[in-house]
């Protein structure tokens, strides 16, 4: 993308993004999401994960629960993105403005991702606590935050795409949860051990590599591999590109 193109992309993108952000924080949804997310992110490691009992100075207890928390809560945000716009008819106003479908899709995605990132970064008091109580490997913790944000981005992009097909928010929520759950679980030991009996190694590797969780765990070990990063960026861009295609089709009918 050359710079004048990028300039004209930003021209309508930034007010569209601001509009989405205002939309989220004007209604109680973003605040409710953040409250529930932060409560759960704080409570799970302590009550379910024995955060203090393990007496280890790291955030692995937080990041064990994080993917599952994101998995359940992000569809609750993303379900509104297009379902709402289509049901109320405001999509007609939006799509007759001088904007490209790319600008609209990106603005909506980045706004939801921003809310998710605020939630993830909002767990920083736990990080401070760990540093106060012991001396953790902050490099590893940093990569875990990066991994969680990327994973959140992938769930968000998939959620936004699915929301486009659903007029009902609940339908969007359930479908997104189901799709993301399957994509997350493919890499779990449960599935891998079940197929490792018979499947060829190449298939096992493929199934493990499709998994959103697998790459989260790889990055979370403290080694940022370019391949793992690209995996998430690929998932995000693929879902967004598909959204752009679908949106052009939706308004054509």
């Amino acid at each position, binding site marked *: 993308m050359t710079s004048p193109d990028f300039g004209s992309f930003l*021209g*309508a993108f930034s*007010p*569209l993004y*601001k*509009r989405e952000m*205002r*939309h989220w924080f*004007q*209604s109680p949804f973003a605040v409710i999401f953040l409250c529930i997310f932060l409560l759960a992110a704080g409570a799970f490691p302590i009550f379910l994960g024995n955060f203090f009992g393990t007496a280890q100075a790291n955030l692995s207890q937080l990041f064990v629960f994080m993917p599952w928390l994101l998995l359940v809560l992000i569809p609750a945000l993303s379900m509104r993105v297009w379902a709402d716009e289509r049901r*109320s*008819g*405001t999509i*007609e*106003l939006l*799509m*007759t*403005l*001088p*904007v*490209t479908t790319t600008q609209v899709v990106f603005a909506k995605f980045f706004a939801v991702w921003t809310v998710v990132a605020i939630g993830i970064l909002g767990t920083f008091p736990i990080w401070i606590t760990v540093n106060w109580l012991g001396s953790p490997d902050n490099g590893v913790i940093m990569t875990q935050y990066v991994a969680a944000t990327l994973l959140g981005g992938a769930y968000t992009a998939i959620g936004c795409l699915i929301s486009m097909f659903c007029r009902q928010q609940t339908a969007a929520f359930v479908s997104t949860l189901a799709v993301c759950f399957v994509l997350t679980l493919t890499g779990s030991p449960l599935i891998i051990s079940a197929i490792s009996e018979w499947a060829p190694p190449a298939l096992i590797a493929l199934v493990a590599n499709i998994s959103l969780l697998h790459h989260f765990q790889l990055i979370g070990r403290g080694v940022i591999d370019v391949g793992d990063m690209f995996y998430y960026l690929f998932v995000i861009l693929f879902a967004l590109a598909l959204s752009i295609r679908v949106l052009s089709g939706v*308004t*054509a*009918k």
Partner: protein
Amino acid sequence: MTAESLLPHVRLEGISHHFGGQPVLKDISLDAYKGEVLGLIGPNGAGKSTTMRIVTGYLTPVQGRVTICGHDMATQSVQARRSLGYLPEGAALWDEWTVWHFLHCIAAIRGLRGKEKNDRFDVVVAETSLQQVLHQTIETLSKGFRRRVALAAALIGDPDVLVLDEPTDGLDPNQKHEMRKLIRTLAQEKAIILSTHILEEVPALCTRLITIANGQIVSSSTPEEFAALASAQTQGDRQVYDTAVLEEAFRLLTTS
């Protein structure tokens, strides 16, 4: 007259469209020039709103070409839509927003910044008389005000083409009067396409009438020709713009 002013602001060429195999528009062609107010009339379901959605680029027609101020809607849709303001039927707006924030946001999306944006905002708010509700959220407004907010959003980019789907729908007689006055003022500098159910407002508002029935244009006439058609068929001694006469003309054209 320069060559440029001879080009129509809006040109539809051979537009056909169908929903799920059911044809809704058949070979619609029309031009709208600066200074014209084109009135689309026709029975419910004739294809008026579909035509307007195609003009605004919200729907892509199965066949045919839409050109707005020289920009092809299929290939230069952003430039085409920059010259276009649209008041949709029903006007779904961002209900939780205040009028002030809503109009400023639309202006920013349309590319207006700084002083230019504030100036346009002031002009449009004055034109649509929204001063008293600027800081109210849109969901608290009456239907008449919602309509005017939607119109203000259509006007804020100062587009050359206005597409107004039932602009006077839901307004009281005073507001209708104001709306017509505003449309006539705007028409001097723009091309306007509007649809209406209210036949009395047709002669007062439109320079040309396009009658659509069953997805086809059945007549393109001046308001005088339209009324004459009915008068010729009836006793002929009634006043030209009598509602009954207009309704007779409408019935003659759209049923057969």
